[in-house]
């Protein structure tokens, strides 16, 4: 099972029997059984045959459109599940409710704990870096989460925690030619930020699929406020996964020199930085590998892939909202 990424411009995506095939310049690039596909992501331009559109909708396979640099444009959305009960519970918890506060605390706690664990691990591995200030700060923020009673103040804590972590990010990079000063987006103007943005964009596609499968309305979130066309709930659920999926793979790609400074191009005037087409394919392969890698889910006590854990967390969130379980456990890794 996996996601098909289409990075070459002007591909034709067609269907023969139960298989999806992708052609460009009269050459066959890919031929996979539809049953193995969980999502399709088009980066750039492509022609999608009407038969493929019908088939993807029937099989509930989401199709996302991204620009060549990975900015999210939109998606072909299969029918929402008929589970009105999950959506009802989701809407009832909207605003400053007890449930909404609990979930927001959970998303932030998950993210900040995973940030802190990443820094503590690096601290143990090496002697030169000093993350003590940041890990202390994160610990302090984590302990004030429970006593903070408004969502806006919780957002403030989330921002402070992220800032503490990203101040250390440059020290996590051990590869010549890469620097990280601060988180810069829209557009990212340095390679590290470009990789992070691309990774988060891919992750949000996957989390939105998981949130849809469970039956949520992806546009109503608790931590992220509603804004037209923004999948807020997917962004909420994504928080706890950012450090363990995207940051980990970006650091791996840089520090192991799988991606080097030569793999980037810079636009004139805007200084927007992006990957060369070949390096983009490398990056997508790394992301797919990360998603398919196994770990033991701390709550369920069973081996699962990161991809599967997106849906498990979505289901646990639904169970919390529907009062099947008393608390939402964010995915916190040791």
């Amino acid at each position: 099972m996996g996601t098909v990424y289409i990075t070459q411009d002007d591909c034709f995506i067609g269907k023969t029997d139960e298989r999806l095939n992708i052609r460009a310049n009269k050459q066959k690039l890919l031929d996979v059984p539809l049953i193995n596909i969980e999502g399709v992501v088009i980066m750039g331009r492509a022609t999608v045959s009407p038969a493929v559109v019908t088939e993807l909708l029937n099989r509930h396979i989401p199709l996302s459109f991204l620009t060549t640099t990975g900015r999210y444009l939109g998606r072909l959305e299969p029918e929402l599940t008929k589970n009105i009960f999950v959506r009802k519970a989701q809407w009832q918890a909207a605003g400053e409710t007890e449930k909404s506060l609990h979930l927001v605390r959970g998303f932030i706690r998950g993210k900040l704990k995973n940030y802190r664990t990443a820094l503590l691990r690096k601290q143990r591995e090496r002697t030169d870096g000093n993350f003590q200030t940041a890990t202390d700060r994160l610990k302090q923020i984590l302990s004030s989460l429970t006593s903070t009673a408004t969502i806006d103040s919780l957002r403030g804590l989330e921002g402070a925690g992220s800032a503490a972590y990203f101040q250390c990010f440059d020290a996590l990079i051990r590869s010549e030619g890469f620097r990280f000063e601060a988180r810069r987006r829209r557009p990212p103007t340095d390679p590290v930020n470009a990789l992070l943005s691309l990774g988060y964009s891919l992750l949000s596609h996957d989390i939105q699929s998981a949130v849809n499968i469970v039956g949520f309305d992806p546009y109503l979130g608790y931590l992220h406020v509603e804004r037209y066309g923004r999948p807020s709930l997917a962004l909420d659920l994504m928080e706890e996964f950012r450090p363990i999926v995207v940051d980990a793979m970006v650091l791996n790609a840089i520090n192991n020199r799988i991606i080097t400074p030569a793999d980037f191009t810079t636009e004139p005037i805007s200084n927007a930085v992006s990957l060369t087409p070949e390096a983009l394919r490398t990056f997508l392969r790394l992301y797919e590998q990360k998603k398919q890698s196994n770990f033991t889910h701390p709550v369920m006590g069973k081996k699962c892939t990161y991809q599967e854990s997106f849906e498990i967390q979505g289901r646990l969130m639904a169970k919390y909202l529907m009062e099947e379980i008393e608390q939402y456990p964010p995915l916190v890794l040791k």
Partner: protein
Amino acid sequence: MNNSDYITIAALNQYSYCPHRCWRMFCAGEFRDNHYTLDGTNLHERVHTLGEGNREEMWQVRAIWLKSEQYQLIGKADLIESVEGEVYPIEYKRGKKGEWDNDELQVCAQALCLEEMMGKTIERGYVYYAQTRRRQAVEITEELRQEAIATLEAISNLLQTGTMPPPIYTKRCRGCSLFHQCLPQAADKVKRYQEAS
């Protein structure tokens, strides 16, 4: 009342297997196939392509609609046979006689419909198990009738209120095609979970 307010005969089987599964399928509209359900669908496609016919002294009709106004029931019969004036329903199942007796309830519900439609008492039906190719007789006893009627009332209540029966983990969960949506062990596991600091 329109047809969508009727209880489908198949819901009986699902409810007695697991009320939570019944809720997921008929209230929440979730359905996912696994290899068991696909087997069953394939079998029913074969069964349902044949029509009416005579086999020596026996008259057979396949894939007809059954309906009962009294019990607000609707569904499709796999096979109805009639020999020397006696009419009985036969339900096709994949596999062999199961560990759960819910197939008998389904046959009983079909009998209730047939009784109302034909104005005669149905004393027995059969379940045909594809794997063993055996017919298992089901006596429509008063006890079975009462059980079917009580289950129908419970389902009717479930459909009207939409209240979710909690998932309860048993060994039959392993064969359920909705296991990954339901995660029946989650409540227990979350209760015992200690989050890392």
